[in-house]
């Protein structure tokens, strides 16, 4: 089976809520003003409340309290707000889902922490548009959710193989013919999110130095390893996945950067988990 077939015709992972596409379309349109975007998001009161909570969290560190969407958009920018809307709608979308083999709170903690770690690595590297890395980290294991939801018995087989040694991602490939990274990328493509994001999710276990998205994939890859190492949540995998030495080298970080980064990720993950979950 191809990775795409895992996300076709499934009831549970059809499309993202319309609000995301409206927001996405508005952000892409150069004519859109901050107040236009504020009005579109404002139609969804739950989303509005969450966005205001996020921009007022210490994660952003604005001194005065931000009370309107328009003010929030002015401060963080349209692209960043779009990425926040995406993160919020995806988590809300999967809220009702509860896989037997997968603890959802733990899954989202792992995902959020990975997003935060990716964002922090991107900040260290002074990459533009760091919220993009938050989204990529947040969604890196989304394929696993699809697999646990729609193919529970195969995933049970894969987990049994995994218990005997090796990596879960390899066990998935053996049992299902596609792994969670490929299925995640297929889902993001089906949701019509950017190719760059899908490719980053696809390559997060094995960043390919020849590919255009190598840096993005390497950032999410390192974030995943760090978050596993800190045991912040879990997504089915019990052990720290191997770190690609090539990816680490390409990112050009100093080992001295890591300890402060880890401490920050732990603090921010706790904060964000309380905001989102």
């Amino acid at each position, binding site marked *: 089976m191809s990775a795409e077939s895992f996300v076709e015709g499934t009831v549970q992972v059809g499309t993202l809520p319309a609000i995301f596409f409206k927001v996405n379309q508005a952000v892409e349109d150069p004519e859109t003003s901050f107040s236009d975007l504020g009005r579109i998001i404002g139609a969804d009161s739950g989303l509005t409340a969450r966005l205001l909570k996020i921009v007022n969290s210490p994660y952003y560190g604005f001194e005065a309290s931000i009370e309107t969407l328009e003010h929030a958009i002015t401060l963080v920018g349209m692209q960043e707000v779009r990425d926040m809307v995406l993160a919020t709608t995806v988590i809300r979308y999967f809220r009702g889902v509860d896989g037997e083999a997968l603890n959802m709170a733990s899954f989202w903690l792992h995902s959020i922490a990975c997003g935060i770690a990716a964002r922090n690595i991107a900040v260290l590297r002074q990459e533009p548009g760091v919220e993009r890395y938050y989204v990529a980290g947040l969604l890196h294991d989304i394929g696993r959710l699809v697999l646990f939801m729609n193919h529970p018995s195969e995933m049970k087989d894969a987990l049994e193989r995994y218990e005997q040694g090796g990596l879960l991602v390899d066990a998935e490939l053996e049992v299902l013919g596609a792994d969670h990274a490929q299925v995640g990328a297929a889902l993001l493509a089906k949701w019509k999110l950017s190719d760059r994001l899908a490719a980053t999710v696809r390559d997060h276990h094995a960043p390919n130095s020849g590919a255009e998205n190598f840096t993005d994939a390497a950032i999410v890859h390192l974030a995943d390893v760090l978050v596993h190492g*800190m045991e912040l949540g879990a997504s089915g995998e019990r*052990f*720290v996945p191997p770190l690609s*030495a090539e990816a*680490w080298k390409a990112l050009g970080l100093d080992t001295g950067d*890591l*300890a*402060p980064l880890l401490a920050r990720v732990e603090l921010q993950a706790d904060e964000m988990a309380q905001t989102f979950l």
Partner: protein
Amino acid sequence: MLKTNGFSERSGFRAKTPVGKEFYFMGRVRTDDLRPGMVPRTEVSTHNGRVLIQPGQPLTEKHLQIIKSWGVTMVDIDDEDFSVDSDLPFLPDAGAPEAERKALEALFQHTDREHPAIRELYAYRLRKSAGCADGGVVDER
């Protein structure tokens, strides 16, 4: 010149690895451990290559402020007495309970424990297990 290895008072760990090997000190000093009068051996520069301080001139309080405000984490220092090798992270030789050590070994079984980044991550976990709430880090950024 001030004679201190800079970090031991703060974190309270002895400079030994779990296997009891003495640490090898060389020219990398963590920003928190920098003191006025230390002399950078190489240019101090930011992540995007902006040079903040030329090598050879002794650091002043003002330099330290600049280094911290630009988020520089390590500086090459000329005097070996001051420094700690960033590739040999600071591992507590006691303190982490045996059960937690075992659990950590299992957790990291698929990784290359010799890799500097993995070693740093592992050391962070060990420091936390040994009761250092923030993993021994004072982050001023």
